[in-house]
């Protein structure tokens, strides 16, 4: 929410510079993305290694995946940074306020994808929604979808496994958020909010300040988003890819199938339980996911693990504890875990 007047950005030279910059960046991006294998091959040649050795294969994986993931990430993060300027939390709240269960849950889960969200703002956002008359279940649909159906995860899944897996992830993630929200709404748990939250709920003097941004300012927001996200996650990504490369080069083929394969019924719940105490972002975990799947782990099991790591994080629970009583937190965790379990089994069944 920017209440000040936008600074003058209409100067034509600046617009021209931006347009040229975006066009050039797009060309360079596409050129780099279409030469990833060549790059990894030439790095290996320079080092005098061959892909026949485990070490060579691991290095090749590393030098192919690192630029690929970083390119995809930079592109998506920029686009999302721009898209998010159209969906300030205040606007999302205005769109959701007064919606009934059902339609409201679907809308909330969808808006969760494009509204900027960070778990440190979870409580003010949560209360901001409730105080504007957004029902509790609808608010939860948003709160579940926002971290889980993560644009970074979606982009990386698309880049690594193709559009089918990405679409399934999107569809099932939204489904978990919508259904969990409806279930929580039906349980009528408003009395399990902390007392000070219930007191605030009475206030309804909210109004949405319409933002007037020039397209250059939106572009600048995209760049700022890159600086913020990529600067924060790149060490995780490199570490993730290095671990993935190790698995790729050294772990024998189909080794994972023995305990993460489709036939192992307990693998999905085990993956969800393992994921809760772990906390990383989507970008860091996907290279590991890719390597595990390459060695015969079932996609559903791995995706359940991934969703659990991202959506059910201990730090976020601790933050939410300030506004929710333990029973509501437990219900929230239980319903989401149940949804993820279902997604895991469905994936294993369908693919």
């Amino acid at each position, binding site marked *: *929410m*920017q*209440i*000040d*007047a936008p*600074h003058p950005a209409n100067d034509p030279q600046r617009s021209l510079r931006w347009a040229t910059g975006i066009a050039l960046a797009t060309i360079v991006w596409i050129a780099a993305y279409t030469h990833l294998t060549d790059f990894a091959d030439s790095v290996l040649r320079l080092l005098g290694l061959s892909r026949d050795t485990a070490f060579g294969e691991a290095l090749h994986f590393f030098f192919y995946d690192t630029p690929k993931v970083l390119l995809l990430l930079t592109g998506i993060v920029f686009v999302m940074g721009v898209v998010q300027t159209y969906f*300030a*939390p*205040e606007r999302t*709240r205005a769109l959701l306020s007064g919606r009934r269960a059902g339609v409201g849950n679907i809308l909330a889960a969808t808006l969760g994808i494009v509204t*900027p969200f*960070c778990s*440190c*703002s979870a*409580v*003010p*956002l949560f*209360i*901001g*929604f409730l*105080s504007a008359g957004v029902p509790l279940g609808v608010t939860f649909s948003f709160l579940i979808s926002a971290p889980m159906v993560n644009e970074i995860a979606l982009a990386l899944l698309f880049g690594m496994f193709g559009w089918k897996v990405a679409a399934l992830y999107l569809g099932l993630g939204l489904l978990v958020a919508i259904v969990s929200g409806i279930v929580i709404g039906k349980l009528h748990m408003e009395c399990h909010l902390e007392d*000070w939250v219930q007191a*605030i709920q009475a206030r309804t003097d*909210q109004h949405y300040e319409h933002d007037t941004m020039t397209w250059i300012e939106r572009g600048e927001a995209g760049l*700022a988003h890159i600086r913020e996200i990529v600067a924060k996650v790149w060490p995780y990504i490199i570490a993730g890819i290095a671990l993935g490369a190790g698995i790729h080069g050294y772990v024998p083929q189909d080794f994972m199938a023995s305990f993460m394969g489709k036939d192992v019924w307990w693998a999905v719940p085990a993956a969800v339980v393992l994921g809760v105490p772990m906390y990383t972002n989507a970008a860091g975990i996907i290279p590991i996911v890719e390597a595990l799947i390459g060695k015969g782990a079932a996609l559903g099991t791995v995706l359940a693990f991934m969703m659990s790591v991202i959506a059910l994080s201990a730090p976020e629970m601790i*933050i939410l504890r*300030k*506004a929710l009583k333990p029973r509501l937190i437990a219900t929230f965790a239980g319903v989401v875990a149940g949804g993820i379990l279902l997604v895991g089994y469905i994936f294993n069944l369908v693919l």
Partner: protein
Amino acid sequence: MKDVKVLGPGCARCKTLAEMVQQSADQAGIAIKLEKIDDMATIVGYGVMSTPGLVIDGKLVHAGGLPDAKKIAGWLQDGPAT
């Protein structure tokens, strides 16, 4: 003396914002009273939905993300633009 409040539950960006404001005020030679608010009820009371938020003389001027250093200087100079 301007009364400046940084709203946020103590995440990294809230601390950065507080430092930016102090720096900006020092540069412009403006006396401020800087206060960090981490009580959720108070933060929410200002109508903030994404942190960090910035309040100058009782008025919310910014919420969500780190503002431009130039904008901070502007808010400190002339108070919140309405």
